[in-house]
């Protein structure tokens, strides 16, 4: 049976609908894991909350915006500094965290005054910052604080500021995916077309669904600069609040992360007629294809080919050095959702790696359609996986490396399986040509790291099972 009931799930057989083992000649019309559905009681989900999806993933990336979190302190701290999205203005977004620090009395008597006071305090402390996003959290949503009314009042008191509100408490959806959705739709409805951007090129686009993880956006920006394409708005890597207000003026929306940001691209197409082009930005083959498509749209194919040729000449030999050493290695990808389908073919085609298991925390069924179409037979496709399932799957597929977050990464280290940070990266950027060499290097360093083999040796054992020769096999 292609839908798999793992031994660890014997008491929660509903999990079978979420785990698929692809067989020969099967496709997603026959077997598609149920996704974006409520977590089944009894499973220890690794999902984030809806608020986290709005703040940590999208809003908190902006480099010129106060992120006012209306709730208890923990909601602010736990969505701050856990993702590495630098900016070119000194990483303002990563240096500071803001919270209304709700206490019991505010919950009992209402938190609107507290919010208003906090907003003024933040603007007073940072007079050069004129933009703010206010987020509700579980307690402030439950007590019904009217954050939009407070934002309106503050904007009236301070005519030079602009405030956007995101009403998406943690319980609003089944995972962080709901937060992506709420922020996308709120922004298009309330803020897009409230400011006219300055147009500096005959070729304009928005780059949507890239969050400048360790410099992804800044690396890709060097390509767009060389091609003479103006990026009106980055949604939201290294982006600004006001640039996002001018998204309606772009000629093309280029989408990388269709899960977190496809909604705004769809609405920009529906409301403003701007076409949506989905590309993959990880991998040589994919990046070249993405550049070719963008250049074909604008009729500047020759420029694109010259750029690709330059980048291949510079980086392909390095990639090939790693490919020779990573050929045939087995990888598991346990991340959010889209990186499953972005990466499975790119690591296979560009590095010769076989992806043997993939798990998505917040992907929808659309993401599983994509990854099952691209992924291999004999590979596991898992929705909302939990730790026990991971351990059992590991026994079946025995990967050489796992791309996942630090929390799961620390767990699998104990099994002497290396992990690479699939969310915030080890040493990125990972997008683009240079970036994929970085990914290859981090994968190589993980797979051939001698420490993990040494850590598996019991020094009291006179005949250790793992011989030192193992640690030199990369040479």
């Amino acid at each position: 049976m292609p839908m798999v009931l793992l031994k660890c799930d014997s008491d929660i057989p509903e999990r079978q609908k979420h785990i698929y083992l692809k067989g020969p000649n099967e496709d997603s019309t026959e077997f598609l894991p149920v996704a974006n559905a409520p977590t089944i009681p009894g499973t220890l989900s690794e999902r984030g909350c809806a608020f986290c999806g709005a703040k940590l993933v999208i809003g908190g990336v902006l480099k010129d915006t106060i992120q006012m979190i209306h709730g208890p302190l923990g909601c602010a701290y736990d969505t701050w500094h856990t993702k590495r999205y630098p900016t070119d203005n000194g990483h303002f977004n990563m240096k500071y965290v803001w919270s209304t620090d709700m206490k019991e009395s505010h919950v009992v008597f209402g938190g609107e005054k507290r919010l208003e006071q906090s907003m003024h305090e933040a603007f007073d402390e940072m007079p050069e910052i004129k933009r703010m996003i206010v987020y509700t959290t579980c307690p402030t949503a439950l007590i019904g604080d009217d954050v939009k009314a407070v934002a309106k009042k503050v904007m009236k008191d301070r005519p030079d500021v602009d405030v956007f509100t995101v009403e998406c408490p943690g319980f609003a959806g089944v995972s962080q995916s709901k937060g992506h959705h709420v922020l996308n739709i709120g922004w298009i409805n309330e803020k897009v077309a409230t400011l006219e951007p300055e147009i500096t090129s005959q070729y304009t686009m928005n780059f949507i669904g890239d969050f400048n993880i360790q410099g992804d956006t800044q690396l890709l920006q060097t390509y767009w600069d060389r091609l003479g394409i103006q990026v009106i708005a980055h949604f939201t890597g290294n982006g600004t609040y006001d640039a996002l207000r001018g998204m309606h003026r772009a000629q093309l929306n280029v989408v990388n992360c269709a899960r977190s940001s496809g909604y705004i691209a769809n609405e920009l197409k529906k409301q403003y007629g701007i076409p949506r082009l989905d590309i993959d930005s990880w991998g040589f083959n994919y990046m070249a294809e993405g550049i070719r498509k963008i250049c074909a749209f604008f009729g500047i194919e020759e420029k694109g080919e010259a750029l690709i040729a330059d980048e291949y000449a510079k980086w392909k030999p390095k990639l090939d050095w790693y490919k020779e050493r990573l050929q045939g290695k087995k990888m598991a990808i346990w991340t959010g959702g889209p990186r499953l389908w972005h990466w499975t073919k790119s690591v296979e085609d560009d590095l010769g790696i076989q992806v043997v298991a993939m798990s998505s925390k917040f992907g929808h069924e659309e993401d599983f359609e994509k990854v099952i179409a691209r992924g291999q037979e004999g590979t596991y496709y898992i929705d909302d996986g939990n730790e026990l399932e991971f351990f059992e799957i590991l026994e079946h597929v025995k990967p050489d490396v796992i791309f996942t977050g630090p929390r799961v990464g620390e767990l699998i280290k104990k099994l002497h399986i290396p992990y690479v940070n699939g969310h915030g990266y080890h040493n990125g950027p990972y997008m683009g040509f240079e970036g994929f060499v970085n990914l290859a290097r981090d994968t190589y360093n993980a797979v051939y790291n001698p420490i993990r083999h040494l850590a598996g040796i019991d020094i009291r054992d006179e005949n250790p099972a793992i011989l030192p020769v193992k640690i030199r096999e990369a040479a």
Partner: protein
Amino acid sequence: MEDHIDDLFGYVQERCLWQFFSRTWDRQENIDGVLGKAFELFTGKDPKLATPADKLFYADAKSMVSDCLSRFPWIKQADEAEIRQVLDGLKARLVDNVITKSTNRELTHHLY
């Protein structure tokens, strides 16, 4: 003929994100648009690029046509009628796979 449709279907499934857009109408629009431009390119016609949508479908089709010409030698030998037949078969297969038989529960939601 079926073998040729299999070739193109396998390629599109593996490479093309446009078949998996959010809703049925987006998928149908992309399938019609990209395959329409692909036909023009396969048969040596100059594609019309009057609208932003024309340019988008052209951009996606151009990559597809280039890849398919290098992967599948039979395309260069095919005449216009054969290309039309294969692309019609591909369209039917794609509509069946990513729209009609898709079990994605969000495909028909009226809102994004």
